[in-house]
């Protein structure tokens, strides 16, 4: 039953994305930046979705520490992995954008830099998990790290913003305008991204639960 719902949601998300992309392609081009400005329709929603993922990861981590139930640990790792993927999409779209506008593959724009640091943070979370074998310890330590990482995210964003005002670098939004009737398409894409995030998290979550069952069966077999 759950699988069917996930399947349907996934199809809806992809349908929205496809239809929206079609519509966006026919929107008038932005005056100064040209067609590439439309990447904002993807660049920002994936970042916002990644932020939602990090908040869910925090809640899941705290709930695990309180209840010790592994279902929350599975949720935490699933949503963090998905968030990492969305953040990577943000970095890639930002890089493409920069290449088109300024001819360079990377600009130390405040938001992009913050996204990079956050990506490294949550990649560290996954690396930490990989390095710990014992399930309870792995879940506990990962949850503690996740809390520390989440506390850091707002500080990182503001620090890098301050730094960039003192050391100016190219800023993406400085040269563009966002007509109000585009907001509709933006929100549709936002919905599609969130749906996609939910679908991917659910799939990964199911996978993690099964993996845990396999691990415990393996341990049981070794004990016999």
């Amino acid at each position, binding site marked *: 039953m759950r699988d069917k719902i996930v399947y349907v949601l996934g199809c809806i998300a992809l349908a929205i994305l496809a239809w929206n992309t079609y519509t966006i392609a026919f929107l008038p081009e932005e005056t100064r930046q040209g067609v590439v400005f439309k990447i904002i329709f993807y660049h920002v929603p994936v970042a916002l979705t990644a932020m939602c993922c990090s908040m869910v990861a925090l809640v899941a981590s705290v709930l695990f*520490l309180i209840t010790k139930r592994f279902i929350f640990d599975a949720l935490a790792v699933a949503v963090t992995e998905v968030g990492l993927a969305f953040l990577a999409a943000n970095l890639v779209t930002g890089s493409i954008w920069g290449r088109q506008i300024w001819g360079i593959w990377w600009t130390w724009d405040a938001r992009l830099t913050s996204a990079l*640091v956050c990506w*490294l*943070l949550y990649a*560290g979370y996954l*690396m*930490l998990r990989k*390095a*710990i074998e014992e399930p*309870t*310890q792995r879940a*506990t*330590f990962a949850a*503690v*790290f996740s*809390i*520390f*990482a989440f*506390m*850091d995210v707002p*500080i*990182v964003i*503001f*620090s*890098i913003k*301050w*730094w960039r*005002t*003192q050391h100016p670098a190219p800023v993406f939004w400085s040269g563009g305008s966002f007509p109000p009737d585009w907001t509709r398409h933006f929100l549709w894409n936002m919905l599609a991204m969130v749906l996609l995030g939910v679908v991917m998290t659910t799939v990964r979550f199911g996978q993690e639960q099964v993996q845990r069952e396999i691990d415990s069966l393996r341990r049981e077999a070794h004990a016999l």
Partner: protein
Amino acid sequence: MRLVRQVLTIAAKDLRAELRTKEAINASLAFALVILLMFSFAFDPEADTTREISGGLLWIVFAFAGTLILNRSFAREIPNDCLDALISAPIPGAALFLGKAIANFLMVLAVELVSLPIFGIFYNVHWAQQPAQLFGVLVLATWGLTVIGTIFSALTVNIRLREVMLPMLTYPILVPALMGAMRLTAVLVLGKPIAGDDLSWLKMLIGFDVMYTAASLVLIETVLVS
């Protein structure tokens, strides 16, 4: 108060053990000197621009060299299973953490205070212009580095590739604190007072230290007894 005594006992123990062998401190100091040497090839030591970025360079040296000391923090409890004895002793996890953090802080600060004049000599940078403020920045940023390094040392204590994992986890979290330290150090080295926008950096550093110290004190017990 008993808590203070316990914290000081742990700190004294760590310091005594380290000063006997001096392994970590020597390695840290040597590492700092090597990085300073390599920087002299990467950046022209005579140029004015180097003086401007000296604040940034300095904290890269401190972050890397400090990690060598911080790594040892909980790792020194692993041989002979000493961590078991500490956990079963009637001291709160917070006292154990604070004692270790203080010992680490003093050791990293010592390495920094030795590296500072050497950096000054190598790169013709005048550190002594505003010594009190510079020392203040040093203390604040080093405490942030120490707190994160100590709690993560506990997190990585018995995992594979610990020496690689600790820096990988610590540096991204430290980005704001390091940026603040770099900015404030650069300002002080150029002879300017910390004012205006830079005060925000100072406040951020203090906030960072307070927030992560509190989080570590709360979560250390969960890390030690999982």
